[in-house]
């Protein structure tokens, strides 16, 4: 009995398959306007060409919303993503200094390593975002980023202030790029850079997190500054306590 049921199911499935494949041969036209109306019409008048999908051979499909010649409207975003990779390694070396026996500040090391990991992951995420939008990635950098080197000997307060500075600059740049991609007149061409999706990504994925980071780091910087100014003699002890808080 079981084998009869299985046989019936197989027969039913193959009937369905043949119907499906028949249907797909009957309606072979690709979506109109994907590669131009003319080619779509040619396809309809000559179904054989559609079976071979020859209509698709002319060019790659792209998720980009601007012409290939105008793709440089996204250059600032690419440079911005690359800046995250650069800053990630800058934090990486900055953090490492606090893991040496002479500094021995595990809390500061943890804070800066966290910033490094976060910048690295965000940089990769932005590269993925570019790929989603049809923007090819290149290792281009802004002039002010090209000269970044692994840092020389810095103090705890200088490191935190530097991190606050970097994060605040990243926030300011995010604002600028957001403005570039979120303002246009109704009739403006996409090649001017208007891109609601990218603006949304910047606002939701980057700005929200960055605002919190900047606030935390500026708070730490001011706290350390007050501890130093109020009683410089106690500052080494203050640093010890502050480091413990960060651990």
């Amino acid at each position, binding site marked *: 009995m079981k084998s009869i049921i299985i046989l019936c199911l197989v027969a039913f499935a193959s009937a369905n398959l043949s119907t499906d494949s028949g249907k797909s041969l009957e309606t072979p036209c690709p979506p109109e306007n994907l590669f131009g109306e003319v080619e779509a019409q040619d396809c309809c008048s000559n179904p054989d060409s559609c079976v071979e999908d020859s209509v698709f051979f002319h060019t*790659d*499909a*792209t*998720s*980009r919303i601007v012409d290939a010649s105008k793709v440089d409207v996204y250059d600032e975003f690419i440079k911005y993503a*690359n800046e995250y*990779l*650069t800053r990630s*390694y*800058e934090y*990486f*070396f900055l953090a*490492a*200094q606090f*893991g*040496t*026996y*002479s*500094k021995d500040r595990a809390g500061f090391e943890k804070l800066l390593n966290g910033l490094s990991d976060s910048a*690295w992951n965000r940089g*990769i995420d932005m*590269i*993925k975002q570019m*790929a*989603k939008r*049809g923007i*090819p*990635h*290149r*290792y*281009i*950098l802004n002039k002010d*980023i*090209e*000269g*970044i*080197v*692994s*840092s*020389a*000997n810095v*103090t*705890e*307060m*200088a490191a935190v*202030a530097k991190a*606050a*500075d970097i994060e*605040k600059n990243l926030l*300011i740049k995010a604002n600028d790029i957001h403005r570039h991609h979120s303002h246009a007149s109704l009739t403006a061409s996409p090649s001017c850079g208007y891109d609601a999706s990218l603006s949304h990504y910047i606002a939701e994925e980057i700005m929200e997190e960055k605002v919190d980071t900047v606030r935390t780091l*500026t708070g730490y*910087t001011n706290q*350390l*500054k007050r501890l*130093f*100014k109020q009683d*410089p003699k106690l*500052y*080494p002890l203050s*640093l010890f306590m502050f480091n413990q808080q960060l651990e």
Partner: protein
Amino acid sequence: MNKFGILAAIICVFASVSADTCDVSAREHLNNIEFVDMKKGCVQLTEDQIKKEITASLKYLSYGAYFSQDNVNRPGYAKFYFDAASEEREHAHKLIEYLQMRGRYFDIQDTIISNINIGQLIKESEQAKALGLDHGWMKAPEPRANGLSAGMESLRTALKMEYAVTESIRNLIIACEAEKVDGKNDEVFNDYHFVDYLTGEFLTEQYKGKRDIAGKISTLGKMIKDNGGELADFLFDQKLQ
């Protein structure tokens, strides 16, 4: 410089006064205690290895970006290379942690670690010749003239890159197990622990990684034979996802 930059600069001036004092007092208590024994040549080569790991991480990142593109569309390969990029970065981190443990991170004169041009490393990673290897396959037109696929060419270059990194680690081991001691012509220092660490941790990982990539090349190669690279790549990409 924005307003905050100036603020930070002012803070740095305050901080440098006291922190210098801290460092000086820390060193005072360590005076005349010779607890750091890792030698300078070995440290410098390790720092150089850290640079190589970073360059490899950035190169793998560009592979990931390539395979993520809409006109390449190989999410499996992209994931494989993005993960490889983070792994190389982790290697650099492990070497730094080791130098910290041995008291040799940022501790010697003529250190290169304090002056690595990160911007330059990023820009060099764009070049087709990074790490002395040809990464030009990314620019090759499709379909590929040699009957291969982008996936196959990437794996072949990745294996060469892993081989180069492995050789570099081997040379580091050779240097660190017999470094001449300053001022003593016939005395060499064998850094047993570092050599053991490099052999046990790093080389094991390198050989496992190379075996993995070689296996992938072998499997993909068998799929390409008599079938064509594109379909083989398409199917193999799904295995990598």
